[in-house]
């Protein structure tokens, strides 16, 4: 089948303003949108710029807006879109560097701000620290995050004010706050109770709908908020 791609283009070296360009490519219904982008770049227009690496949804490089919604280009098949007109645009809320490439620095800055690392100052035992399968399951969902930024850049709260730490940072804080081996919950919850923390979330759910790893982000945020409100982890 033939597919029409309408792609957001912006080259800072030559363009004052962004514009859209249209390409027609031959595609199988089972092609990934990433395959189509590669095809355009390889056969029609080598200047088209986007990030990609793993090509199967585990590295988080190629989050972009596909038909108006944040997706991983490598995880959407043409047939999933149900149309042969595909519009591809960069993520919202992060500065666009070129075409579909956005500056990820503000995103990672927020990520780093919530202490997304294991904190336990007790001397470790000889072998592993024990953890029951139930305790492990408590935070399993949020360990899946690949830092693709699809969630944070789909959140209207973040669009309005880029100082909001955003769902991805909260997800990564949640992963440690609810890890029975970790002792840093107090510090993290203090950070997240701040003006730009969890209370900026208005339960809009765009993040949850966008997450390619199907993490229950809004739920995780709710659990963090609840921990702040009740002073308990359960």
């Amino acid at each position, binding site marked *: 089948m033939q597919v029409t791609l309408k792609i957001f283009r912006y080259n800072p070296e030559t363009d004052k303003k962004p514009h859209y360009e249209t390409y027609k490519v031959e595609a199988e219904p089972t092609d990934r949108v990433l395959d189509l982008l590669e095809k355009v770049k390889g056969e029609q227009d080598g200047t088209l*710029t986007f990030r990609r*690496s*793993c090509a199967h949804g585990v590295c988080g490089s190629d989050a972009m807006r596909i038909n108006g919604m944040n997706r991983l280009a490598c995880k959407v098949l043409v047939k999933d879109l149900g149309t042969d007109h595909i519009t591809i645009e960069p993520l919202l809320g992060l500065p666009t560097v070129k075409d579909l490439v956005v500056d990820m620095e503000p995103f990672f800055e927020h990520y780093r701000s919530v202490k*997304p*690392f294991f904190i336990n100052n007790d001397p470790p035992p000889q072998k*592993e620290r024990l953890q029951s399968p139930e305790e492990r399951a408590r935070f*399993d969902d949020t360990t899946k995050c*690949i830092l693709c930024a699809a969630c944070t850049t789909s959140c209207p709260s973040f669009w309005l004010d880029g100082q909001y730490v955003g769902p991805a940072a909260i997800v990564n804080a949640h992963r440690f706050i609810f890890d029975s081996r970790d002792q840093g919950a107090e510090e993290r919850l203090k950070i997240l109770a701040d003006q730009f923390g969890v209370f900026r979330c208005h339960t809009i759910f765009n993040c949850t709908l966008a997450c390619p790893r199907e993490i229950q982000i809004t739920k995780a945020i709710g659990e963090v908020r609840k921990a702040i409100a009740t002073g308990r982890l359960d």
Partner: protein
Amino acid sequence: MKTHQYDVVVVGAGGAGLMAALYASRRARTAVISKLYPTRSHTGAAQGGIGAALGNMEEDHPEWHTYDTVKGSDYLGDQDAIEFMCYQAPEIVYELEHMGLPFSRTPEGLIAQRPFGGHTNNVTGKPVRRACYAADRTGHMILQTLYQQGIKHGLTFFDEFQMLDLIMVNGRAAGVVALEIATGEIHIFHAKAVILATGGWGRVWEITSNAFTLSGDGAAIVLRKGLPLQDMEFYQFHPTGIYKLGILITEGVRGEGGVLINDKGERFMDRYAPTVKDLASRDVVSRAIYIEIREGRGINGQRYVYLDVRPETVNKYAALDGRTRPDGSPYVVTAEELLAKLPDIIDFCRTYLGIDPVTEPIPVQPTAHYAMGGIPTNIKAEVLADEKGTVVPGLYAAGETACVSVHGANRLGTNSLLDIVVFGKQAGIHAAEYAQGADFEPLPADAADFARSQLEAIRNSKGNERIADIAAEMKRVMMDHVGVFRTEEGMQQALEKIRELKARFKHLHIDDRGKIFNTELLTAWELSNLLDLAEVTTVSALARKESRGAHSREDYPKRDDQNWLKHTLAWMRENGQIELRYKPVVITKYQPKERVY
């Protein structure tokens, strides 16, 4: 052009690079440069597990792990290195756990382990549960955990900086030249020690489990610096990649009881590996699938077989095999259990195939997966300059790009994640130690010239050859002739083709001549690396007239220890000629014998 100075520069931020950086930064000023944001490294794609004889599920010993690895390597692995790695394994897995890695757990709260191909109880010969796992996201968890530690300890990262060249002064490593992708600016990183951890090069082949970005940059750069690459003919094809896409279906699926089925509905591994069957080592299973396909028993005559992990199939064959749970009860799985243990695999199948593996079998074919060969190093991760073991001062390599060699002719599943953390750590420790006792070599004035000229040549090239076309032709010919099965004739053909492609590469058609985020330029540069590596692989493979591990020649089907129990070293000389030399395998305890599973 900007110049930076660090004691140690680590190139690559996968498992190996991050582990090296964590250790180096304890004693030396360290910078990590990576062409991808660290968490996008391909270590994150690893699924099944990391091997360590913890014995959490049943009796196990590092010694058994050592023997299995030696045997798996088809006796080409260096036994001192293998022993070192396998004895380090439990300690390093505990270290990862202490860093917060969320392993799956046993009911007692210990790290959970599952069986994997080639890992056995040395007494009974039955599979042993040695792969420590975190669902089917073990690599993801390792990568995330190490990156988190990097943030915790304030590592200096240069993200999206692509190394283009290595600076060598007086035979010592003195730094690297890198391109800041976002600006197109060249940076020089002046260093006392350089650690290369740039990963593999599966993109040489058409069907591969590897990321677009795995183009073997580090190995190709080393080759261009006049240093050798070792055992390049040994490239692993993983038996179960998703048909056509190459996306990996972890061996863990067979570990959980999945079986391979041909068009006649036979579980054909019975015939090829009567004892461990579907859990034989990868080269054995890949060849079996190829033979089935070639003899017309692919599904509907196509180039794939089924990997069947439906609970009813699993339970049927588990009963036939007499497989039991640790408590002695018969092994029975439910769909829920599979969903919990293999969530990502099930998600891949749903997304890309539209099938549900608990109700339908998965179409699979062998997929190019892992480079056993690479930059030769010793146990301290020091890079070696020749067959005599001369060390290149200040240069270290670890991870898939290095060849210690612990994998020999065939890597066992779970041993790579182990390799990257064990030898990444060694590289970090020894590079920092070296840097403390060494001075900066003065930088030559023309340090960046070669890199710049390489880029400019591509940027200004005028021709009509498409990058994508050259890449596609290389991948196809390598898949057909330097893949699972090889012949003299086929490989000759491939070699000619690659040389032709290298000539055509000089006449590229380039659309993007800009500086900012010019990925077309970098893709072309990466292709030049792939072409060099494809050529070295083919030349090394042509010379080796035997079959061993992943190198399987139809014209020389037998292993030949008399003549070929040795490592290949390949140099690319100034005139482009490839020179091969050999060095002996280190054998300590285990004399080569025939390998049966």
